[in-house]
């Protein structure tokens, strides 16, 4: 379609057309992007979920997105910003631009991460909107366990401290602290039950079933299937009162059994502090309609959805939520400031063991390869047309071209938030295809069609929130 002649004489003139075309592109895309109105919301909203696709928080987030979308009449896209035991997602959501277009799904980890010095983010950095759900932690044992009641378990812990093994989350994460807090309330040392770190409740429950664990601490909905099938037994729920739902009302609270300890996993929505008050008010009004069950999507209300999923749907509006957050935060401060949690919890294998093994393996295999290569090289210097000498990158132009790829990616990372996704992509597409020898018109055509096409594909159809920037 195009005869590519790499060494054209008039490179200077070419560069000028290049710039001109680039400028035109910028103007073109800025024109097409100038349809922003002032009424909130005028463009898609991002809901940041700090946990992975498929989990409980993700399910709640995605359903909330559906309701918000129908109430606000604008697309609401869920982004799973996972990792760092919740640090990543909470920071992304709460520290977003305070323009009302990034809403944060917050979970109880927000109250604990800063006490562990993992982040300096606290609940006070967020403007709380509405809490959505409170599921208490509970203690579970296998159906054939010797422990029939919490009293049996308490006695065993007192008799044989440091022997029972439990799991439910990563070390020092929510359900570990739930168990630790309960032990403290019994005047026991939090380390009297060994915590085996795991990815979450599902693998922990599975380990419980293999018989390697004595106890799992997680929330009721997480354990529902095995509870219903009779494979595990719930010894006590860490709540003030029994659960209202039919599924869980049979299970006694710890309070009924003489302990005062309660711990509730909560989820709620917040937004960056400094978001204009009228936007916050609008969101709270809408959320009130949703959590009260008034708003319906396809004939189903929020409360019906939460019930069916086995989630509690206690909600607290702004100030009450803020109050709750404050108390929650103080409680975790008390637990995490205890001396047992001050030193790094290392367990039998410290955090450096595994990287050291991997590093050692890397070093050893590298030496093996180098020694092997050296000997081979010495043995046959002349005959081997060794493949290590593939000289594809010899010419300066070739090197320039691959640097250009690197530069394009870096440019996209830096410029997309400012210029907008479409504009940035168009510039990169135009320049790279031009450099590879396409004609100006072809390059421009590809740049415009493809950048808009990719934007529509990902943003419209696949609901990935691509940056919009000043232009588009």
């Amino acid at each position, binding site marked *: 379609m195009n005869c590519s002649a790499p060494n054209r004489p008039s490179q200077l003139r070419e560069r000028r057309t290049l710039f001109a075309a680039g400028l035109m592109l910028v103007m073109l895309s800025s024109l097409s992007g100038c349809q922003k109105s002032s009424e909130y919301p005028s463009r898609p909203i991002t809901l940041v979920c700090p946990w992975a696709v498929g989990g409980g928080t993700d399910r709640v987030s*995605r359903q909330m997105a559906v309701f918000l979308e129908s109430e606000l009449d604008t697309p609401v896209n869920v982004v799973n910003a996972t990792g760092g035991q919740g640090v990543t997602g909470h920071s992304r959501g709460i520290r977003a631009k305070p323009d009302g277009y990034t809403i944060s799904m917050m979970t109880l980890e927000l109250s604990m991460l800063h006490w562990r010095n993992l982040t300096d983010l606290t609940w006070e950095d967020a403007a709380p909107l509405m809490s959505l759900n409170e599921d208490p932690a509970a203690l579970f044992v296998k159906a054939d366990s010797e422990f029939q009641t919490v009293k049996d378990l308490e006695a065993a812990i007192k008799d044989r401290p440091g022997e029972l093994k439990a799991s439910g989350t990563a070390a020092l994460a929510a359900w570990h602290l739930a168990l630790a807090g309960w032990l403290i309330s019994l005047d026991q040392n939090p380390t009297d039950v060994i915590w085996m770190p795991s990815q979450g409740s599902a693998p922990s429950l599975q380990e419980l079933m293999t018989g390697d664990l004595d106890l799992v601490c997680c929330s009721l909905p997480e354990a529902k299937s095995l509870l219903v099938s009779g494979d595990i037994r719930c010894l006590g729920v860490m709540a003030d009162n029994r659960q209202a739902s039919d599924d869980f009302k049979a299970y006694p609270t710890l309070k009924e059994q003489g302990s005062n300890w309660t711990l509730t996993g909560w989820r709620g929505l917040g937004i960056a502090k400094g978001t204009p008050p009228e936007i916050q008010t609008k969101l709270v009004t809408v959320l009130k309609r949703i959590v009260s069950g008034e708003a319906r999507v396809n004939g189903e209300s929020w409360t019906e959805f939460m019930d069916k999923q086995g989630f509690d749907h206690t909600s607290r509006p702004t100030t009450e939520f803020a109050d709750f957050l404050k108390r929650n935060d103080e409680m975790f401060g008390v637990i995490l400031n205890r001396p047992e949690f001050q030193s790094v919890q290392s367990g039998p294998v410290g955090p450096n063991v595994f990287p050291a093994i991997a590093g050692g393996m890397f070093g050893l295999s590298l030496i093996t390869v180098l020694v092997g290569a050296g000997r081979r090289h010495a043995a046959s210097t002349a005959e081997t047309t060794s493949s290590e000498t593939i000289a594809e990158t010899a010419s300066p132009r070739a090197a320039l071209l691959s640097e250009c790829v690197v530069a394009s990616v870096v440019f996209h990372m830096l410029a997309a938030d400012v210029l907008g996704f479409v504009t940035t992509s168009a510039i990169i597409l135009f320049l790279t295809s031009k450099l590879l020898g396409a004609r100006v018109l072809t390059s421009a055509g590809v740049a415009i069609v493809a950048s808009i096409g990719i934007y529509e594909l990902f943003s419209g159809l696949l609901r*990935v929130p691509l940056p919009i920037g000043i232009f588009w």
Partner: protein
Amino acid sequence: MSDAFLTALENTLTLKVLLVILVSASYGLFVGAIPGLTATMAVALMVPFTFFLDPVSGLAAIVTMEACCIFAGDIPTTLMRIPGTPSSAAYVDDAYSLTQQGRHQQALGVSLVYSVVGGLVGALVLIFLAPQLARIAFEFSSYEYFWLCVLGLSCAAVVSRGSIAKGLIALSIGLLLSCVGLGSTHSVPRLTFGIDELITGINFIPAMIGLFGLAEVLRNFSKVISDSASADEAAKAGTSTATGIWLSRALGEVFGGIGERLKRSKSRIASSSVIGSAIGMLPGAGADIAAWVSYAVSKRRATPEEKGQYGKGSLDGIADATTANNASLAGAWIPALVLGIPGDSVTAIVIGVLLMKNIQPGPGIFTDPVQLPLVYGIYITFILANLLLIPLGFLAIRSGSLIIRIPRQIILPLILMFCIVGAFAINGSYFDVGVMLVMGLLGVVLERFEVPAGPVVLGIILGGRLEEAFVQSLTKSDSLTAFFGRPIAAGLGVLCIVLWVAPLVSWLRRPSPGTQSAPRLDR
């Protein structure tokens, strides 16, 4: 039983459900073929819609989408060297080599047919053995998982292209990368070098796009002068003359010789599907490990001259690995349906959808007269979806193959763009784009020294799980003998040791280092 089955047939074979299956199959193919978007993502995007579908249609949609998505991942793997899913990373070198030889349609044809076969066998395992097999998950504690991870990683290192030492280099890079950030095993962040973002860790999807896709773009950009035309010509030669009887010619290009191949490979299919189903039904182990193990087994049983093909365009390798990764899909539904424990992230979403429809997964699901037809409905959809995959996959292969004909001045910038967006899409973060870039450069370096990139990806994926299983096991018992304390653990452990000792022995007995490798020119 038969009553429930008839009800299920009645419920499933309605115009509405069939339409839902058709739509979600197309959607699954489409999403799966886009680099960076996973089957999990496709299903999660679909979930809000399933809420207002009836349970049969909703589940049918998910089943169909998942099956189609995993196959569709092979399309960018083959055509652009961007693995659509981590399980495609096992055979990306083979598939892409075939594309460079102009045999991409044949490669995708094999991948399609064997995906369907694997999917069907996996479905049969689910149908006939689910209740019996599910409890095996309870035999798998951290010791067994530890060995399973070691097995998957060993397979990647031992079978990958190049020497074992180079495979090990790649593997240890992957394992080191998996340590970055704040994982679930330790309560302190590691290897973050003071960069706050690194606390997140390295996501394997941008890493995979970088190591394969961007590395290839970089290589092609620098190669553009020397042979810009030749590769295009090679690709065109195979495809462009089709004007006569289009369909039969097209069918020939995609499916040529496949019947013969299927006949020859009955025992391979059997072993690959068994590997796939067995690994798939273990919670937390899925298509990725299955594909690597199956690929390793496949290479092991190959004749010496076939062995040389592995990594350079072996259709047998592709066939066995795709069979296993599709068989593992149905496997993941076994613990999800029977125990309510998700076998992978897709079935985690499925459990949510089931609960939404007032269905409580668990043993009860097989005895409840209301819910049993639904379970049969899932079975029927698995079969239907896989059968439907043949024509739809064929169309996808044909239209995807057009990519090869686009001149490289246009397609290379587009692939670059897809690398960027694909890396961005998974977490909506430009940090991941940066990860992709660094991994792309690493990929170029690795390629320069002929170090395979596949084990790096698997190292990133399994590193965390391996360490977790290791730490958990040592938390439970201080003695190392516990790693061999149970029959399954001991069996897997011995298997891993044999896997490592065998090549070591043959390496030690090798006469002289000079003859070790003939000059190996990839292209």
